[in-house]
């Protein structure tokens, strides 16, 4: 009954409670977003890496995938040696290049082009059409839309540019064999894929590979396989998804630091808000509390009721903060993904039920603790003095 009475006091002071709840909701939303941000990018990156089962990457020695323009020489031999390692299901070679759509004498915007082996590729999902044969390309949706390409159309591409004249060199016509959804493209990226031997020929990089995506056989541990490949092919670097995520984590340390700082600020703000509102409420009911103690209500019961106020505030604030946080996360995600070179399929804010529950539980716990301090003060105040002060 006392707990109910104390909670009803919050309802009675509607305006004040609403303001406090708004503040707690904003803090909870901020903490939620920071929690989602702290793990979101890395988790999402990890998911993307293994999206079609190719969870390992083999790159030039000491270099992360597409971190530099360095390539792996003797690509075909390296591929054979990788595929010979027990536990390897397939090794998909990837060679990155830049092609230019040729329009008469002039050229269009550069197109990111990847050379692939159509039998083992991990870069896109065909939306229509088929894998590229000789003289064929698969265009990304963004490229197809930008250039008005459809399956069966022909597109003239140049692998080289005469910079002084601004003209394409070595132009060749390709048939569009398919339209693909490219996993790692940023929003609006113009990409295409063609057979690796054609990219090599056009760019005069015979037998080169930028990196391999490697798929492990079922039941094979990625890390163990990465170690075996490293031992078998020591002239390249082999990365498991976990290792790449660790590297990603290291590179994104500032994101996590930002999330930690802002999350901590949110907690402090929550604690201050709850503590302030409970302190004011307790101060107003100082006489009531003293009277209840005098008539024999145990101190612990009163303390519990006061803590329940903080708890209720924090809980209600969390419930309001949850949709607010998700909405803000969606908006921020859209803004951050519009930054260049960030794959559109990535997400900065990942919903992980356990982490989110932990973050919100933390807010509720902070609310309860914040109610504890004014509660201890009010119920620990010398009773006779409290009654005397109230009577004066």
């Amino acid at each position, binding site marked *: *009954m*006392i707990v109910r*009475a104390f909670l*009803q*006091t919050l*309802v*009675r002071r509607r305006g004040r409670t609403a303001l406090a709840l708004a503040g707690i909701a904003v803090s909870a939303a901020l903490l939620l977003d920071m929690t989602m941000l702290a793990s979101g990018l890395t988790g999402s990156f990890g998911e993307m890496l293994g999206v079609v089962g190719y969870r390992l990457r083999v790159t030039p020695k000491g270099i992360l995938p597409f971190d530099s323009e360095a390539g792996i020489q003797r690509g075909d031999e390296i591929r054979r040696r990788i595929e010979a390692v027990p536990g390897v299901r397939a090794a998909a070679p990837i060679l990155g290049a830049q092609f230019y759509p040729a329009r008469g004498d002039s050229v269009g915007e550069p197109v990111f082009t990847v050379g692939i082996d159509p039998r083992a590729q991990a870069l896109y999902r065909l939306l229509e059409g088929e894998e590229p044969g000789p003289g064929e390309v698969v265009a990304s949706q963004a490229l197809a839309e930008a250039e008005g390409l459809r399956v069966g159309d022909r597109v003239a591409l140049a692998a080289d540019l005469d910079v002084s004249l601004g003209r394409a060199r070595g132009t060749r016509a390709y048939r569009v064999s398919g339209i693909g959804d490219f996993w790692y493209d940023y929003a609006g990226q113009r990409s295409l894929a063609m057979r690796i031997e054609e990219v090599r020929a056009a760019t005069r990089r015979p037998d080169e590979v930028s990196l391999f995506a490697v798929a492990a056989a079922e039941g094979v541990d990625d890390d163990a396989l990465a170690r075996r490949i490293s031992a078998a092919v020591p002239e390249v670097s082999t990365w498991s998804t976990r290792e790449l995520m660790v590297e990603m984590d290291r590179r994104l340390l500032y994101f996590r630091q930002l999330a930690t700082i802002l999350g901590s600020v949110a907690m402090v703000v929550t604690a201050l808000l709850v503590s302030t509102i409970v302190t004011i409420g307790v101060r107003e009911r100082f*006489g*009531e509390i*003293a*009277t*209840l*103690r*005098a*008539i*024999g*209500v*145990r*101190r612990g*019961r009163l303390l519990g009721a006061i803590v329940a106020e903080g708890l209720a505030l924090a809980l209600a604030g969390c419930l309001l903060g949850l949709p607010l946080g998700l909405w803000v996360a969606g908006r921020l995600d859209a803004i951050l993904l519009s930054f260049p070179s960030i794959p559109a399929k990535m997400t900065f804010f990942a919903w992980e039920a356990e982490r989110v529950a932990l973050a919100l539980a933390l807010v509720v716990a902070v609310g309860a603790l914040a109610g504890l301090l004014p509660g201890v003060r009010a119920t620990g105040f*010398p*009773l*006779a*003095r409290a*009654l*005397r002060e*109230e*009577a004066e």
Partner: protein
Amino acid sequence: MSIITARGVTKEYPYEGDSVHALRGVDLDVAAGELVAVVGPSGCGKSSLLNVLAGIDPPTTGTVSLLGRPVYALGERARSDLRLREVGFIFQRFHLLAVLTAAENVELPMAEAGVPKAERRRRARELLEYVGLGHRLGHRPPHLSGGEQQRVAIARALANAPRVLFADEPTGELDRRTGEEIITLFRRLNDAGTTLVVVTHDPGVAAHAGRVVEMADGRVVGQGGAG
């Protein structure tokens, strides 16, 4: 037979590096069924004595026995329990919980004492009818007059059928006519066998007391029948 006994009670409060002597060696006995009024000028130690007798504030020295128990030898929890179940309190400021109805305010000490819901509802109704507020069960304190609130506070004090009632300036916030109604109520309670110790400035209250204890400067300076 005494149900309240105080022996050699002193009370000192620290005050700005010094100490205030609120009680200076008080001896007092209150027999079962008495209505005792404690009177005296402001600051003479009346409320301090009431708090010490009621188990609210431990004396600096001396002993207090309430209902045959050495109050301050009990732990805080046991003392709270004693106050909840066997002692009633009425204060100058009623301090009812504003969010609860009159009936719920009366039910509260019973709920704390573990009285079943149906039983405490019935008793709260009876008590509010007893103090003349049977028609105000569902009203909240802000919608009651000062006199009505004090009557709710009296009903609350009676909730667990206490053997002793302590009242500190119970008519201090009321007009004369309402104050007289409260005095009449006290008289009825006392006639029904409840022991009352009332600290008051109100000569009307003192006039109805069976015994008046007069205090000055922290000491009992006189005792006698009313009038």
